[in-house]
């Protein structure tokens, strides 16, 4: 018996007998025609043919129990017989089962449910096309958002009183001050890792002292800025999306509009400005912590004393653009992170799942854009020779 795998129902059996006398066919259904017992008769009933059958009798006299599954199997057989031109009669169906049979007769006339075809080449091409269209749609609407932010920024420059100072300060605390422990710790550890790796290689040439140059240049030019940007994208960019998205779900954004306030001015500008101000500061902090980590490693691993380290560092990066090459990038990164974070937040639809989806997307997109921008900066700086 093809019983339910782990459903504890009373042991049941459904019995089926078909008889044919001349042009009359009789189906005798008896026992428990319920889920877990009736479905073995599915194939037998499906296999019946009604050629030359004038009347189909369905005899339910022996039915003990009947549920939708059993009733459907009988009903389907009846319909097939009717399609083949036979007359059908219910014989001796207990009164208790009549409401169910008439419900199925009246309400359940749909074809078997169809399933979406999401396999195969066609569906794949369709997804690909939709993805492309979505991408271009996103690009256009991001451009629109940038325009909106730009016009609000200009308006704010002419009317500085529209800038929300308390919101700005609170955001600076949140994205700047509160990020210091994690940014500091990670930069410190990266400094140690870089010093160790550099020392290990350069020792072979007896050029351990150049570990300091390696450390200074790589941290100041690249690692400090980009690591800080990536940490902040994961930490603050995502929270911009989540905060604004949650407000969108709660209709708070709509409420702002109806109260005559502009969400871009109230929500986006303070966040963007806060990030543009604090990310360069965080980058400086990250540089200091990274070099501190490197100095510590140089002291213990290479025996380079702190004064010697500082002298060498001064020689390596004390003049020229090295420090500024890193710092100049930070506000641009901040702008990208804040734009993507706020934009995706405003894209949230009115359901909870959408917040999670767009938060993830916001982080991926902002890290992607930060690295693309960094690559562009590298090309630019090499052309400029700095």
């Amino acid at each position, binding site marked *: 018996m093809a019983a339910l*795998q782990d459903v504890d129902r009373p042991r049941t059996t459904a019995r089926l007998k078909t008889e044919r006398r001349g042009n009359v066919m009789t189906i005798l259904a008896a026992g428990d025609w319920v889920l*877990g017992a009736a479905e073995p008769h*599915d194939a037998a009933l499906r296999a019946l043919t009604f050629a030359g059958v004038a009347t189909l009798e369905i005899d339910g006299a022996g039915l003990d129990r009947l549920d*939708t599954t059993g009733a459907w199997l009988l009903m389907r057989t009846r319909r097939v017989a009717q399609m083949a031109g036979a007359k059908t009669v219910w014989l001796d169906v207990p009164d208790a089962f009549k409401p*169910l049979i008439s419900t*199925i007769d009246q309400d359940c006339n*749909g074809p078997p*449910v*169809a*399933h979406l075809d999401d396999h195969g080449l066609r569906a794949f091409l369709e997804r690909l096309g939709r993805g492309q269209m979505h991408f271009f749609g996103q690009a256009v609407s991001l451009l629109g958002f940038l325009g909106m932010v730009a016009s609000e920024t200009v308006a704010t420059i002419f009317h500085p009183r529209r800038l929300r100072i308390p919101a700005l300060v609170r955001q600076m605390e949140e994205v700047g001050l509160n990020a210091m422990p994690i940014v500091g710790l990670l930069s410190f550890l990266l400094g140690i890792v870089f010093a160790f790796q550099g020392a290990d290689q350069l020792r072979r040439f007896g050029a351990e002292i150049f570990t300091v140059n390696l450390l200074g240049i790589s941290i100041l030019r690249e690692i400090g800025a980009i690591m800080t940007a990536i940490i902040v994208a994961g930490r603050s960019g995502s929270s911009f999306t989540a905060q604004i998205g949650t407000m969108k779900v709660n209709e708070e954004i709509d409420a702002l509009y109806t109260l005559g306030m502009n969400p871009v001015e109230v929500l986006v500008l303070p966040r963007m400005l806060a990030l543009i101000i604090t990310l360069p500061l965080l980058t400086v902090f990250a540089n200091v912590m990274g070099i501190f980590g490197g100095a510590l490693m140089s002291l213990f691993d290479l025996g380079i004393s702190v004064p010697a380290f500082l002298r060498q560092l001064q020689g390596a990066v004390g003049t020229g653009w090295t420090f500024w090459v890193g710092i100049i990038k930070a506000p641009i990164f901040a702008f990208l992170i804040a734009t993507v974070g706020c934009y995706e937040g405003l894209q949230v639809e009115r359901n909870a799942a959408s917040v999670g989806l767009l938060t993830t997307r916001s982080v991926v997109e902002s890290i992607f854009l930060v690295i693309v921008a960094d690559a562009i900066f590298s090309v630019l700086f090499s052309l400029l020779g700095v």
Partner: protein
Amino acid sequence: MIGEPVIKVEGLVTRVGGRVLHDGLDLELRRGEVVGVVGGSGTGKSVLLRTIIGLNRHVGGRIQVLGQDVGKLGDRDLRKLQTRWGVLFQDGALFSAQTVAQNIQVPMREHTDLSPRLMDELAAVKLGMAGLPPDAATKFPSELSGGMRKRAGLARALSLDPEILFLDEPTAGLDPISAAQFDTLVRDLQKSLNLTVFMVTHDIDTLKATTDRIAVLIDKKIRIGTFDTLVHDPHPWIQQYFSGVRGRAARAEA
């Protein structure tokens, strides 16, 4: 029609977040009966429903469903028992990544070995019973209206031909016309499938249209009766709750 007890709650005590919600609560539902649970906000109507279906643990008392003690069952036995009832959550609780047809087939695929072809036919039967058009099968829950989501949730709850149906605020958030249609649907299905229905609701029209008895949650206990007896209950909350109806009925007669 009314048969042996299928749900039997005795001396139930539940505590949520340190607060005692039910204290010595008794309730009995017999086979084929529709019972509505009402009560003020925060009296633990939904908690009672969730406790009976095993989503909340209770601190004291006994809950017997279909002859088995819910509180004493292990995970495996509880899961077996759970396939004998269907639950409709407030907003349907449909799986959002799946189509309506797939949603209805989730319990079938998990607990039976029906052939795919028969599963597709049966899913269409459940759709029809829940009053959904055939083309709803390939839609995702997000493409449905609130009323249709509830119907789809009902179709999924009926997927394994359960003996008991639990409904949590089945008509909340529906317009009066859809709500009335849903009431009729529940009543019809109850009759044709001989279901026992336990429903939590605020909707007095639903109570009147569908229930055999009404359980009022008051002072951490249940006071149960028919619509007509409860209208005359002297308890102030019950008086207030039903006075609107009585007023309306009186106005209709005048």
